[in-house]
């Protein structure tokens, strides 16, 4: 996660849910990264 540049205070935008469900594509620092719910749920987010 940290390798993706996901640190405290990073802006994340949820873009798209996979057609098969669960996995979501996020925009993180200009890159599009798909994460499964297990991983994504470990990230605390705040709505901007």
């Amino acid at each position, binding site marked *: 996660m940290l390798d993706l*540049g996901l640190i405290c205070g990073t802006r994340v935008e949820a*873009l*798209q849910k*996979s057609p098969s469900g669960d996995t979501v594509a996020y925009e993180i620092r200009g890159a*599009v990264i*798909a*994460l499964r719910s*297990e991983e994504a749920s470990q990230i605390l987010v705040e709505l901007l």
Partner: protein
Amino acid sequence: MGLKQVSAGRIARETYKIDLHDEDLMIALAGNPNTGKSTVFNSLTGLKQHTGNWPGKTVTNAQGKYVHRDQRFVLIDLPGTYSLFANSVDEEVARDFICSGEPRVTVVVTDATCLERNLNLVLQVMEITDHVVLCVNLLDEAKRKKIQVDLPALSKILGIPVIGTNARDGAGLEALKDAVYQVAMGQIQTAPLRIRYGSAVEECLNLLEPIVKGIVDKNVNRRWVALRLLDGDRDAEALFTQLPFFRIRESKELSDALALADQMLLEGHLDRGSLRDHIVTCIVAQAEEITQRVLRCEKQNYNDLDRRIDSVLTSRIWGIPVMMALLGLVFWITIKGANYPSQILGTGLFWGQERLTQLFLSAGWPDWLHGLFVLGMYRTLAWVISVMLPPMAIFFPLFTLLEDLGYLPRIAFNLDNYFKKACAHGKQALTMCLGFGCNAAGVISCRIIDSPRERLISIITNNYVPCNGRFPTLIALATVFIAGELGSHQSVIASLIILAAIVTGVMITLIVSKLLSKTILKGIPSSFALELPPYRKPQIGRIIVRSLYDRTLFVLARAIIVAAPAGMITWAFANIYIGDLSILQYGANLLGPFGRLLGLDGFILMAFILGFPANEIVIPILVMSYMSAGQMTELDSLQALRELFLANGWTWLTAVCTMLFCLNHYPCGTTLLTIKKETQSIKWTLITFAITTATGIILCFVVAQSARLLGLV
């Protein structure tokens, strides 16, 4: 020092099997996945390593050579990684190689459209070695997205040479070679930026660095070693196993200093648990700060177009239908387009066969010689070429086009939840895509999956994707048998049948993956992140050259090498009689009852057994067995094939079952050898053999028996 100096180049030669001469300078090529690193590598060395627009292409170290200003360079393409924290095998390989101290220069390739995240790795490489050259690649993509990178400013901030390139058309590569040369020769002194980790950590580093100096045997950056000692396992012995290429002496001074450092960290509200997060945060923040200073975007939403494409290609409603339609279209173009050239090639090659026969007759050579070489070898070759070449020459460029555009990771994304439910890794879909080309390549690509359990699952199930060796079989059967039966719209129906075969293969993959996860390979899916790279403009010319040269001709050559002896052996088997029956017929009679249970016959099973070295030759062998058993027709068209099969008692059910068995049986010899090599285990190779074959037997049995019970045939 009392420690043995490791001679230059030894690690490279012994551990990485790098072919290095004394006068060669070794250059390492690092970078994030999917930044065009392989393209840079190819452009510099002139090698044709396969590149594609999805992360994780470089699954093993590749090396190439080039000469610049009369100096020979050996370039090592490291696996693409996001960082050097050794969280995965790839990261470990990349880090170990860089810190072995042997590469004279490390070039870090970055994607100009995604500079911020790429800088992470650059900063980490700069911590290990001073001799770094930064290559900012994909400038044309950046230009298209109206992103401007101030390269001179970046170079000044980082303290290393920064070269802008566009490796796909070769722009900037001369400058890159110059910079590498100058850094390697010491003509440019770099002054890499050091990341500051805040007062607590800096004080610890100040304490440790002088001690490290006394006990490390190599010219590795001492600050970096101190940081690793602080961050990772404390005792030198553990660090030595982690970092195999340098030695740290046990010392009381060091352990005392580390204990003191722990105290100091605590005072700074850090402990060993939070230190790693703190370090990464500092690096990311540094990258962010630098990016803000050197990057200018004219358009705020430069990725809008990509997002809009994605909102269709991966949308909840359209994602899967569009994917099916795209694949269906690829198959349709392949089948439709291959039809005519196949006929021409077939006619030409069989005309050649007649000439050869005349030659043999007029020369008065014996019958068996004619049979062995013309009826056996030549005819099999003619079939392989006329039936395999046209579909491959169309399918591969189309598939490479999808790959180049960046569509394959979207397939993985679309299907991810199914793989998750099967307790499999999300990247398994990518390895399956490669399996389309060749299952052996697919098996090798399973290295992109780190978890051993999930890697084994991908390896075992890769064979359920039909490789190009089996495509022609599927296409031929679908076209002449099933679609032919229905009359018009042959190529459309044939495409749909192939599509159905692929979907079946994917479903079987998921089911078998799930079963494996619940039985012999128990476990839950490991965590992963899949990058969906930006769409890129495909390079049509390169696609065609690459897919024809690298894939089509390669596969065809392999098929021919196998088909020639196999054709002779089959002819011999079909024409050597023991009593009343040929060897082939004996085999077929023996296998007959079992074959019929599966909706096949003895000859079909014999063909699959003799086709073990390569799937391409199953149909040619089958044709020869049927022809030698009686009817001597000239087989110059698919229509003739249909008649030959009909005369041998085929129905639509035989065709369906043959297709199913083709899709689900043991991997070919090459793939099995690859599995053995990749898993380092005969056990898993045999398990793969057993599972795939059992799938085919069960499936064919169920289909054949149900159809018979329902009275469909």
